[in-house]
């Protein structure tokens, strides 16, 4: 049990996929306009990553070495389309909000990266924990960036108004329009990597 905890912490904090491995930046910029999208995206990535890591790990001894990347891609894309279909059927609004980015999970480097770097060489259970750890690491970064962008860019959190309308009228405060644009996500991501390194994450204290 302790080793599982350690593995998850290692994957989500010390070698965080976004902050340390700097993978999956594209979607981290795109879907972090608000917290809700970040959460759904994070959940989708955890689902796909767990599925692909376990599937690849189960097949790791029979996958022909020369076509392993293609096989990994086939597994990943199948899972992504599955998630996309399920979202369309049961969470229609969310799938509309995420639009193409669900499909683009296929090209999310975290998933192929973990399949190639971990699942190909480890048994299914550790691969699952690795997937969950990395997925959590991806999700919390998205949620933190999403929270800042939603709060500063729209005065809301998870769709609830945090900064009251009267405050805008009384003080002339204006939402920061930059926050809803992609450059703001870049800036926040940079700050987040810096802070997490200072706190000992992202292999900062080595």
């Amino acid at each position, binding site marked *: 049990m302790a080793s599982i905890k350690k593995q998850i912490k290692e994957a989500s904090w010390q070698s965080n996929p976004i902050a340390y491995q700097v993978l999956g930046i594209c979607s981290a910029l*795109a*879907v972090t*306009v608000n917290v809700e*999208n970040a959460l759904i995206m994070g959940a989708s990535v955890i689902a796909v990553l767990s599925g692909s890591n376990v599937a690849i790990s189960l097949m790791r001894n*029979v*996958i*022909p*070495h*020369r*076509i392993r990347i*293609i*096989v990994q891609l*086939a*597994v990943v*894309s*199948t899972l992504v*389309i*599955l998630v996309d*279909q*399920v979202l*369309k*059927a*049961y969470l*229609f609004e969310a799938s*509309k*909000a*995420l*639009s*193409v*980015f669900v499909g683009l999970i296929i090209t999310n480097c975290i998933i192929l990266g973990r399949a190639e770097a971990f699942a190909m060489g480890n048994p299914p259970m550790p691969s699952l924990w690795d997937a969950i750890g990395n997925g959590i690491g991806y999700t919390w970064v998205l949620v933190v960036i999403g929270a800042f962008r939603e709060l500063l860019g729209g005065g809301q959190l998870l769709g609830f108004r945090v900064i009251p309308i009267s405050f805008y009228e009384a003080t002339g405060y204006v939402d920061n*329009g930059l926050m*809803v*644009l*992609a450059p703001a996500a870049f800036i926040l991501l940079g700050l987040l990597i810096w802070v997490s390194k200072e706190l000992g994450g992202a292999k900062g204290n080595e």
Partner: protein
Amino acid sequence: MQQSNGYIIGFAIGVCVVCSLLLAGVSTALKDRQEMNQMVDRQKNILKAVGFSDADLEGKDGSAVTAFYNEHIKEMVVKTDGSVAESLQVADLPSDAASGLNIQPDKGLPLYMRKDSSGAPLSYAFPAVGKGLWSKLFGFLAVKPDGDEIVGLSFYKHGETPGLGANIEAKWFTDNFIGKHLYEAGKLVGVTVAKGKAADMAGVSKSDIDRHAVDGMSGATLTGNGVMKMTKVAPKPYAAFFKKGGR
């Protein structure tokens, strides 16, 4: 370990077969639900375009939305000469015509009438399709029975950049269209989407701004241009119908 070519090809085929069977199965199993979601989504957007608010629709699941829709909306088919094709239903039109994807004017135009309790028209909504930056924009534009004053605009499908062009869905943007006019002295001029604030537009008279211009979206000028063009094109086939005074 070097595997034989036969093994590699066999493995590849095996993976493909398993994956495709899985996807085909899931897609078939979920198809009905997805199509229902799309239909409900379209009905919701028609309701929003003709002036119902989110509050009216809140907490309603799929079948409740459909019931509400049937209570307030009458689907009809009109011809380009302005007459109503009584014998035709929206469902009879070529597939996807209902959403504006595939309107063939000679076969009839879908029109959605909001009726009051006595059945008299309050407003009409019709599909509005435009070209954004990356994608086609699908929406509904609703006008008063005079065919001129806009009651509402809603978008339900597009592939614009989330956070930028996707703001066409946002309430602050679509609400700006309410009360604007499509016609000026009998000519279809549509609604101009300004760069920045409409009030700051140079070389345009105040009355023109009040009647025909809305605030733009920062970072999404091209999407805005698409919407602008759409308001000039989409009402055209319906002009004859409204000229006859609706019905």
